[in-house]
């Protein structure tokens, strides 16, 4: 699909993207790349200039946008824009009540628990921290039990701890997700697949594939996460780095492999006559002989 703003600026050009049920996909790209516009198009707040959006095989149009939006929950970048009611539980109940769903209390409880804010039910949202407001906004959408979550810059404006907690929450959530972000590190923790968007789709693949493509990142104005930078520097220093990790878990795994490779290489370089190898082989012989 293609989308132009009223002033003629091209926001999205020939974007072709499909997401499977249960898949978590990140849209990464610089400011003005069209990430939020893409989410708004999928949520039916805007209609494409050309092309179409299909949700569960049904084409999104002005007539069915409200109906299909209950299948697709959009969480805004700024939770202040999404929270309306005077208390957290009332705000979370707002969507299910509008949809005429039954058992609203149970839905609210489930949504609050999923968002990790059961203790805030009676609180006034405007008095909560920004991170907590984000969770309230997410709970408000989860209570409607949509098939798919659209998250616009979920980690922006959060302090490190709140960010970590939100990433954990989203990673553990069993939902189809489309996340617009330029936080590559957070995206790597959450998603299965990523799309680099810069008006058009520049690249599609795993987060590891994307961070390995430095040219793509550079052209898209994205910066490598610190942990990837570290391994990139190690590679340039001659360490046997095969891939650039993006998350801490990947970094630990890659570091273990690097140490093994390095040990093997060192061992080969020293040859059988070196004292360490001799000691190792002696220990191995001893174990083999049952001594």
């Amino acid at each position, binding site marked *: 699909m293609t989308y132009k703003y009223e002033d003629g600026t091209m926001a999205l050009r020939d974007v072709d993207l499909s997401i499977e049920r249960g898949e978590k996909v990140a849209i990464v790209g610089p400011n003005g790349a069209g990430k939020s516009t893409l989410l708004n198009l999928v949520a039916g707040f805007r209609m494409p200039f050309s092309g179409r959006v299909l949700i569960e095989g049904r084409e999104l149009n002005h007539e069915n946008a409200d109906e299909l939006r209950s299948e697709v929950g959009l969480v805004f970048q700024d939770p202040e824009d999404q929270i309306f009611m*005077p208390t957290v539980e*009332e705000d979370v109940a*707002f*969507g299910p009540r509008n949809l005429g769903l039954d058992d609203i209390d149970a839905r609210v409880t489930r949504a609050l628990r999923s968002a990790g804010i059961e203790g805030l039910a009676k609180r006034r949202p405007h008095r909560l*921290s920004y*991170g907590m407001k984000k969770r309230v906004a997410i709970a408000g959408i989860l209570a409607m039990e949509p098939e798919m979550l659209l998250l616009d810059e979920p980690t922006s404006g959060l302090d490190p701890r*709140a960010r970590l907690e939100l990433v954990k929450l989203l990673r553990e959530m069993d939902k189809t997700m489309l996340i617009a972000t330029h936080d590559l590190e957070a995206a790597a923790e959450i998603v299965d697949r990523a799309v680099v968007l810069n008006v058009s789709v520049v690249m599609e693949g795993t987060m590891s594939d994307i961070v390995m493509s430095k040219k793509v990142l550079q052209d898209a104005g994205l910066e490598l996460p610190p942990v990837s930078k570290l391994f990139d520097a190690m590679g340039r220093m001659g360490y046997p780095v095969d891939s650039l990790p993006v998350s801490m878990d990947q970094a630990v795994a890659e570091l273990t492999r690097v140490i093994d490779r390095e040990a093997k290489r060192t061992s080969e370089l020293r040859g059988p006559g070196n004292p360490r190898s001799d000691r190792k082989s002696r220990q191995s012989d001893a174990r083999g002989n049952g001594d």
Partner: protein
Amino acid sequence: MIITHVRGHSALRERDEDLDTSWFSQLDPRVKIVGVFSFVVVAALLTRPEGVTIALTAAIALAAASRVSAKRLIVAYAAAFPFVALASASIFLFSGWDRGLTMLARTSSCVIPLLVLALGTETFDLFSGLRRLKVPGMITTLLMLTFRFLLLLSDELERMKVSRQARGFRGGRSLLDRYGLRVLSFTAGMVLVRASARADRVYEGLRCKAFRKDMIPWRTSSVRSRDMAFLACLAIVAGVLAAVQYEVLF
């Protein structure tokens, strides 16, 4: 922002300090609306100074008993006073001081209970109460959206004020300060533009939560004995006022 940051993750253990737990705030909003508006109608129809005096006394007694913050009530009344005084002044000029004073007391006996109702009830509870009293959804929804827009305006105004002050702007305190007035006029325009953009996003946020055109009432309180007692008290006062008006009493 600093406060928000410091509050951080202890939010789960905190409680809102401004939660109003007075008996008046705990009453069913529908009862408060019906009771206060009935009182206001009766008070507005009084013509005898004795009746007006009793109505004003009852209004002040309600304000005192409701435990609504006296400071907030006085500030709100002071804001409404020019309008109250304007009506009384015209009567004072054309019909004499006694009628002017009666007008002032009568208007005050109507305004004070309304202020108590507004200050002693959560705004959203008022709208929900009105909706449950079968006021058309379009009206209550418009009221709620207007209220939300006013909050947005005030939020944006505050941001712009901080932004101006952060860059050393100290003008606009005199009508002769043309530069200051120019900056303030730009600010006013910018506040409206920004509030309008945010209002669009808020509306989209509502639509994300399946909002169509009508705010469905969300609180399901029931009328309890204390609500009935409150209504009974107001009914007795209204009865006394009617008796005074028709010279059954005094």
